């Protein structure tokens, strides 16, 4: 029985997927943690900040999972009808919620901490476990109200309570210094809260509270006499729209059942329907046989009504229409969570790009969002589909919901981009030169060319196969080996600056001087002793915009990819397209994106993720070079492209059939 209860709990039903997600997040953090030093003293401030930030983000995500699992519900309606004690139902439910929120986080923590060394590993462990205990406490506190009900009563007060608790949890995780005490405190509080709720749980839950709030309008009239109730006629009831107490009641005789049985269908048709009174004659409404034909509306006139008529109505009416479409299709907490996340990703993408990084991982995460928004809108479309609202207008809401956070995130990132240091595009970290990924090269069935310095020192960069057994590979032509001299590394940095910004700091011949103290290139080989990064000194490039052209092309490609995913998604609903074809295409493409993303996350396992991350950027660079347009024109070119894609998807959206689902999903049982 308990197993069945667990199995039907929506939290447990999604546990496999959550664990998979937790494992992947753990692997991602593990790969990042493996680059950190073993000692916490060696950690820079930004790295400590990163650990706090990552933990906060994960806890925030786990909180959203709590919301997803309808945390305010203690038992399903079906379970309420079963002879199971309420404390048992509550234990199953809370355990399921905890499993769904804490277990993935614990898994992610363990995996991430296993990749870090020494004190840093312990730091990660504390951060993750503290997130778990805070989540446990929050889950208990969310449920500590209305302990006699199967579901906490939601209302403005409860929403404020939940929002405050969530903020407090995120702040605690993000701001309080990491220590084992900070792990134990929420754990003890969670145990106390759990014990409190368990002690106050009755033997059986109620569906609604017994104590109702006082009525705002109380009718002072005494209750009706039950004997008189049967004599109340409908006219008295409808007077003033309020049920009236009868003063004089017609004592109409009740119908004779024998007479009723004599009413046959032939008799029914003999009675014309002229008035409401006739309808209920003898207690049996008659169906009409003769009616006055009313003139039909002229379709031509109707088509002219359209927007002209609609615009004549007041602002209030328009507001209700906007609100209805928006609230029905868009305004769901999951959308907002995703929108917030994607705004952040938009910001992070532009910032990482501005500092010479690879925006691909962020971009691929943000791909999920437009698909998700559209999916949810289509699922809810049937709620307003019977209304004469143009589909194009409905689509505008969906598209704007996508566009606004992206523009906000991109604009914020753009502000950061303007402030970024162009010299940061080429930098060194732990004796390894980092260059923008588009400066890498592709090889097919050929060995990686060796880089030879003017003074004879040579190095062959490592090749990164696209996948195991592939004949194609990518390599970083500006790489240097662990044994390479500082002079060689400086030479490579100089070449990289030339590749990225179009002009080098020095001619290569400047490096022929074997003197280590040569002031020309001395600065290039220097790295801070403690800090892990140095920027190319002396470069005051005005070429911060050198990558903006590439970014414009990337945006265009992203628009096309989103359009493709949206189109395939909508084609699945299209009545004229064989669904299996569209579904196969959609799942195939989405699967490819997901597989790509997974491979890049699991780089420790695959060993070829770097190639997958770099390859799209190299191809983008080639595409950008193939388009003979200046950067402003490239950006302008995105406008007609976006408009064309918008109208293409809009056209599909206007022709799809809104899916309807009559069967109540299991998780609704908990709502």
């Amino acid at each position, binding site marked *: 029985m308990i197993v069945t209860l667990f199995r039907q709990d929506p939290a447990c039903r999604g546990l496999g997927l959550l664990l998979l997600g937790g494992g992947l997040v753990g692997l991602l953090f593990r790969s990042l943690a493996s680059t950190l030093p073993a000692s916490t003293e060696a950690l820079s401030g930004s790295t400590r900040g990163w650990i706090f930030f990552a933990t906060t983000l994960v806890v925030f995500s786990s909180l959203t999972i709590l919301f997803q699992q309808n945390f305010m519900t203690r038992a399903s309606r079906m379970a309420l009808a079963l002879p199971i004690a309420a404390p048992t139902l509550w234990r199953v439910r809370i355990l399921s919620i905890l499993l769904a929120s804490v277990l993935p986080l614990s898994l992610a923590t363990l995996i991430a901490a296993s990749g870090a060394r020494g004190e840093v590993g312990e730091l990660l462990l504390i951060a993750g476990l503290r997130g778990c205990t805070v989540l446990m406490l929050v889950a208990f506190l969310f449920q500590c109200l209305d302990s006699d009900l199967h579901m906490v009563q939601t209302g403005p007060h409860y929403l404020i309570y939940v929002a405050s608790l969530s903020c407090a949890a995120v702040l605690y995780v993000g701001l309080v210094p990491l220590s084992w005490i900070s792990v134990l405190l929420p754990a003890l509080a969670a145990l106390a809260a759990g014990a409190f709720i368990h002690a106050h749980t009755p033997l059986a839950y109620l569906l609604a509270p017994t104590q109702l709030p006082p009525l705002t309008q109380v009718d002072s009239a005494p209750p009706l006499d039950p004997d008189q109730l049967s004599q109340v006629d409908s006219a008295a*009831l*409808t007077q003033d*729209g*309020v*049920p009236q107490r009868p003063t004089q009641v017609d004592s109409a005789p009740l119908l004779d059942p024998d007479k009723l049985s004599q009413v*046959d*269908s*032939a008799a*029914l*048709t003999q009675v014309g*329907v002229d*008035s*409401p009174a006739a*309808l*209920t004659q003898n207690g*049996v*409404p008659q*169906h*009409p*046989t*003769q*009616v*006055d*034909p*009313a003139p*039909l*509306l002229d*379709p031509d006139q*109707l*088509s002219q*009504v*359209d927007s002209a*008529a*609609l615009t004549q*109505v007041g602002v*209030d*009416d*328009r507001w*209700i*229409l906007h*609100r*209805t479409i928006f*609230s029905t299709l868009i305004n769901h907490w999951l959308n907002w969570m995703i929108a917030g996340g994607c705004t952040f990703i938009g910001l992070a993408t532009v910032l990482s790009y501005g500092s010479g990084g690879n925006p691909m991982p962020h971009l691929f995460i943000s791909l999920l969002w437009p698909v998700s928004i559209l999916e949810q809108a289509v699922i809810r479309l*049937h*709620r*307003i*589909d*019977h*209304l*004469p*609202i*143009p*589909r194009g207008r409905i689509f505008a809401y969906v598209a704007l919901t996508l566009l606004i956070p992206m523009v906000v995130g991109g604009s914020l990132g753009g502000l950061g981009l303007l402030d970024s240091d162009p010299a940061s595009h080429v930098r060194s970290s732990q004796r390894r030169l980092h260059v923008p990924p588009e400066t890498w090269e592709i090889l097919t069935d050929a060995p990686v060319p060796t880089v030879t310095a003017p003074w004879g020192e040579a190095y062959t960069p490592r090749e990164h196969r696209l996948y195991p057994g592939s004949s194609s590979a990518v390599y970083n032509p500006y790489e240097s080996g662990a044994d390479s001299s500082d002079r060689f590394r400086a030479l490579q940095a100089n070449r990289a600056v030339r590749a990225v910004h179009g002009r080098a700091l020095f001619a290569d011949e400047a490096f022929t001087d074997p003197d280590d103290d040569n002031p020309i290139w001395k600065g290039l080989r220097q790295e801070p002793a403690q800090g892990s990064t140095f920027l190319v000194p002396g470069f005051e490039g005005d070429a911060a915009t050198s990558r903006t052209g590439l970014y414009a092309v990337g945006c265009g490609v992203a628009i096309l990819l989103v359009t493709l995913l949206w189109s395939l998604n909508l084609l699945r609903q299209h*009545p*004229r397209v064989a669904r*299996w074809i569209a579904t196969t295409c959609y799942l195939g493409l989405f699967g490819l994106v997901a597989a790509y993303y997974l491979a890049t996350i699991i780089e420790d396992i695959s060993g070829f993720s770097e190639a997958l991350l770099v390859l799209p950027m190299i191809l983008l660079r080639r595409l950008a070079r193939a388009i003979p347009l200046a950067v402003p024109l490239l950006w302008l070119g995105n406008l007609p492209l976006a408009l064309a894609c918008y109208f293409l998807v809009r056209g599909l959206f206007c022709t799809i*059939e*809104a899916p*309807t689902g*009559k069967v109540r999903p299991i998780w609704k049982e908990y709502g």
Partner: protein
Amino acid sequence: MSKIIEFNNIQRSFQRGVTVLDSVSFSVEQGEVLGLLGRNGAGKTTLVRIAMGLLAPQAGQVRVLGLDPRRKPLEVKRQVGYVAEEQVLPDFLRVKEVIQLHRKLFPTWDRAFEEQLLDQFRISHNAKIKTLSKGQARQVALVCAMSHRPPLLLLDEPGGGLDPAVRREFLETSIRYLADSGSSILFSSHYMGDVERMANRVVMLEDGRVLIDSDLDQLHEQYSLALIPHDSGATPERLLALDGCLAVRDRVDSLHAILQLEPDSSIKLLRDSLGVSAARCQPIPLEEIFIEVMGGQR
């Protein structure tokens, strides 16, 4: 009379090999009330949705008020009142806001009629949709569907889940409206009493095809229930062997035979074929016709 809806060889399926509607053809005349009957999954809702333009037929043509609902969806929707069992009103709005929304969307909105209906249903303008009972929410939906005085009402299981009193009030309001304006109603229902009360014509769907398309009165005349005393010598086997006998049930006092004949013809058949003279015949309720025509109680 002009045709308000025309279904012409409508075909529709949702999965390969599972046909929901197969060459369905019939029409609804102006001022007609047509009851759409059929088992669960017979295709009633699909047909209503096709009429509304919410689904497209994979073959065949549908014309609603002379328009193709897929090509002119807004024009059709503006002239149609639609209430469905699973229809969800925006629960975050108040009644007056829902009405306001519909008022904006339907240019022919009759405000006085809206007030009249709301008063009749005794629904507060300020009530939030989510606080209404199922019956009240359905009544609000009906107000929204009727207040623009559409020439066609499409009701898909309008009484589903409602108590008899609310259901009757709901349907009587529709009939009254019909009497006033001469509109047509196409409604699907499992409540045979409602169909008998409202419709003047029924279409029965079975396995996606039209099994019966008949005036209700004619349908009643075509079937009869014969009450045959046990001591008359008739047995269920002998009765079932009669041409036109659909089913026989052994009751306490007599055998009940359902015959696809009008009462007088049934009595004559029983007398001539089995020598039964004590049989009484009476019209058969629609529910019995439905059950027997649809293949009995499977």
